[in-house]
């Protein structure tokens, strides 16, 4: 057998291995695939193994021999290593982008510390591995392959700068998100009322996580781009801070005071139930108060009143108008009071956003996410000032509160304490909670 033939066979064997899923193939299959004599193959395989182009593995389940084909570059790297280095490198490499701690490495390889250190040094010298610090264990020395980026788990994701939680970064982003959610949570103030609300059936102005992410990207608050998952973390945090609340995107669909703008097509039977319920209710009411003036719009929610998902473009472009023709005629005939016939337009204030970022410019990209969203939207909460009176008393903020006592005439007592003196002498304007 010529040398050429032998190397040819080796080449074929190697290619088979590389083409197999995971570059791994069992011995049987490999031999089948090349279709040569077993002894010849074994020779070729041995050559490949010695050149580090193949790796012999044992299948944990069947106990059969399997081979893994190694790329030429890797083989070249390994070719330059001695056995210890190779061992160390394979463990580091196996830890992927998580990295491996030196202690774990030592335990796994069973090498002596000095040997291990020497190997690591050599590997570092060859530019094959690097040390990284994990945000979880800042004191540990962790090794990772040079060509990989540390995973988010190790680096802490976008929230970490130099392995420290970047609170300023978090604050500025959550602040921005909050401002954005606030701007979308309430309609524009009118002359009549400075604290407008959207009706319960309309939730389309409240942003979803996806929308917030898109907006944040456009707003370019910082060069770091946040993914939806990151934004979600910020949103959860804001919910915990009591600044925003999360509610289902579907809105309230049973009240029937207004048309429901949100499409509810995905929930057919519920619609059915609802209209059934309101029908029933209507009858009852009719019996009781046939000329109820209070009922100016029927409580019916009808499928054909609904609009498709396509409403997004309307947000910024024009006030939304809904007519309820079928209902109108029905109500009119019900009551026989044409003068009571009132038409209601949902006349929403345009949603304002900063500098043209947001609704109008981003509406295109939102459409997709709206339908595919996770089904919840976020709404800002107006802050209640319950119990502020106490918080604003000198005692409420007093650092000496626990020591303050008038019983044993200690140094801190309410009769003479300076906090009250200051508070009592401060001009009215400075005591915010007091409006006498």
């Amino acid at each position, binding site marked *: 057998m010529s040398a050429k033939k032998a190397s040819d066979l080796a080449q074929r064997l190697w290619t088979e291995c590389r083409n197999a899923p995971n570059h791994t193939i069992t011995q049987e299959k490999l031999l089948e695939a090349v279709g040569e004599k077993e002894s010849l193959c074994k020779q070729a395989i041995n050559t490949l193994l010695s050149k580090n182009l193949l790796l012999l593995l044992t299948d944990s389940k069947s106990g059969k021999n399997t081979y893994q084909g190694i790329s030429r570059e890797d083989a070249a790297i390994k070719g330059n290593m001695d056995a210890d280095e190779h061992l160390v490198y394979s463990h580091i490499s196996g830890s992927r982008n998580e990295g491996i701690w030196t202690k774990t490495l030592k335990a796994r390889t069973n090498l002596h510390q000095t040997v291990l250190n020497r190997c690591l040094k050599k590997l570092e010298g060859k530019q094959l591995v690097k040390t990284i610090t994990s945000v979880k264990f800042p004191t540990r020395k962790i090794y990772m392959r040079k060509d990989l980026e540390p995973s988010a788990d190790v680096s802490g994701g976008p*929230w970490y700068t130099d392995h420290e939680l970047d609170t300023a970064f978090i604050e500025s982003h959550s602040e921005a998100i909050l401002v954005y959610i606030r701007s979308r949570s309430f309609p524009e103030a009118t002359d009549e009322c400075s604290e407008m*609300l959207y009706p319960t059936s309309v939730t389309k102005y409240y942003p979803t996580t996806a929308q917030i992410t898109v907006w944040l990207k456009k707003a370019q608050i910082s060069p770091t781009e946040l993914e939806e998952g990151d934004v979600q973390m*910020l949103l959860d945090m804001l919910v915990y801070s009591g600044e925003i609340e999360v509610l289902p995107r579907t809105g309230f669909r*049973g009240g029937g005071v207004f048309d429901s703008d949100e499409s509810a097509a995905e929930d057919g039977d519920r619609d059915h139930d609802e209209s059934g319920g309101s029908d029933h209710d209507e009858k009852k009411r009719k019996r009781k108060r046939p000329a109820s003036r*209070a009922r100016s719009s029927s409580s019916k929610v009808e499928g054909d009143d609904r609009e498709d998902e396509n409403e997004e473009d309307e947000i910024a472009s024009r006030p939304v108008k809904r007519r309820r023709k079928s209902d109108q005629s029905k109500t009119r005939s019900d009551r026989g009071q044409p*003068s009571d*016939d009132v038409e209601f337009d949902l006349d929403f204030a345009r949603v304002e956003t900063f500098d043209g970022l947001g609704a109008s410019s981003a509406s295109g990209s939102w459409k997709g996410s709206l339908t595919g969203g996770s089904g919840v939207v976020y709404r800002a909460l107006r802050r209640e000032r319950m119990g*502020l*009176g106490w918080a604003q008393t000198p005692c409420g903020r007093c650092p000496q509160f626990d020591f303050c006592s008038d019983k044993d005439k200690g140094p801190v007592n309410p009769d003479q304490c300076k906090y009250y003196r200051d508070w009592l002498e401060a001009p009215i304007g400075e005591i915010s909670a007091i409006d006498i």
Partner: protein
Amino acid sequence: MADKETTRLCIQIVQDQFGTTPARVAAELLSRGRLRLAHIVRSTSIKSRAAANAILILIQHNILWHCESAVEGEMFEVNWEEVLARLRFGRYISIARDLFGEPAVDILSFIMDHGKVRAGDIVQSLIQGINTKNTALYNSTLISLLKSMYIKPTSAALQISPRDRLIRYQEEAERAKRASAGAKKGPLAAKDLLEVRELARRRLKEEVDNIEGGGFRRRAKDAKETLTSRTPKRQKIDEDVLDEDIYLRVNYAKFNLHIRNRLIEQSASQRYNESAGLVIRAALAAALPSESTLHGVRSEILTMQNIMRHLPPDPPLVGIAIRPSGSGSGSSTEAGTQALMTREYVNILCAADNPTEAGRQSAFMAYSGLSGAVGGGGGKKVAIEYENIGRRLRFKIFETFVRERWGELAIRVLRLLIDKGKMDEKQIAKVAMMSKKDVQPLLTKLVSASLISLQEVPRGADRSAMRTIYLWYIDLAKTYSVILTSLYKTLGNILARKNAETQKVSAILSKRERSDVQGNEENFLTRGEREALTAFEEKRLRLGVLERRVEECVFILRDLAPDGYAGES
């Protein structure tokens, strides 16, 4: 028995309103529990006559309970809730003014001044004092106050601690049970014991209802029979005349309802807007007549019409992003809008767009009835969720307190703990997105303020700190009582400060009281003195405002949770 801060506050109140001797007696009783007169005299070294007088005064003002013990003889006990209620007298009077006008204020102050007064004496004494007023007006105001339960009859039986009475009734019921035919010897079975307790409780309640529901005497034929139960005979009540011999006192519970309603309204208008406040006020007003105490999870069921009837026509409801554009004539359109707005506001107040647990917890009202329960398919009947609102308001107090004292981060951590239960430091830092070096000191601060607690979970039998997991958690019930105590302490401090400020100018104050100086301050007081007085008045005003605000927090924390904080989460 009241704790240290409550005791201090009670003593201060008694001191302010009744003077030193009663305060010393009350202090003795508050810190030691029930005592006999001899005991009080011995430990306070007040002359027995003075002590007896002080006790009489306190009993007259409903502050002391009277206990008759077979072993110990006659004993006294302080009803501290009654003492704390005295801080609200100003509020009660202003509520009465809003509801019934000036005569009610006179009547109420008169009753408050005397603790309890014979019904027949009230109008007469008032007329004597301010002789120009119209007797008939006072009489009718008194009757309407009594009928609507703003004042209520009281009797000697109610001077005995309700707990004592309950125990006595229980004993009696137990004895009756044993004596009844077929009773076995030995201790009573659990079932019988329950029954006995229930009997006693019912008897106590009936007794109270009987006394407090009375106050009127049937005219003419059966003049001696006082009314026992009010409700069924309400229609006939017109024929009844005031029973002049009965003693009347202020019914705090009824006034407290008004305070509660105001707070709810405030909360709604802050959370949503003014119009939402108006709607909930209308609903509250509709529910009010059927209520007599703060107990009760929710109001009676209200219809939309009912709520709308209680809505003032002006100002109209606004504030939802809809605009009626009608072809109809002006007035009817307005009525239509109003109805529409009302209904939508009810939706909002029901948090109808948020059927999750969190949404339900934040709702002011809830739809009731079958149609309402299933996704709210046009359920047009609602109930006000008092318990829910109370819980929310309590939490708001807690939140504001924490925010002012420890900042936003503390809120975040605490809400996280409430939501997630027990967590260790790392988890907290991760979810709250705070760095560990911020979380650690914060947790320490919160734990030292008794807002949160620490649970150790050792992983080994040796319980070494290294191998122990430390979990933080929050027990709201405990936290609230800590806050309540702090509130009492603050109130105590405010009162103490008020006293101290008064002391400082007491010389000038008494000078001003002199008959020759009164009305002639310009001539008799020096400029410095006058300035000092103005400054003092200003301070007193401010402290007064402060006191009322803190008291409001106490109201939310204590009175809005009449059944304690059990099951708080």
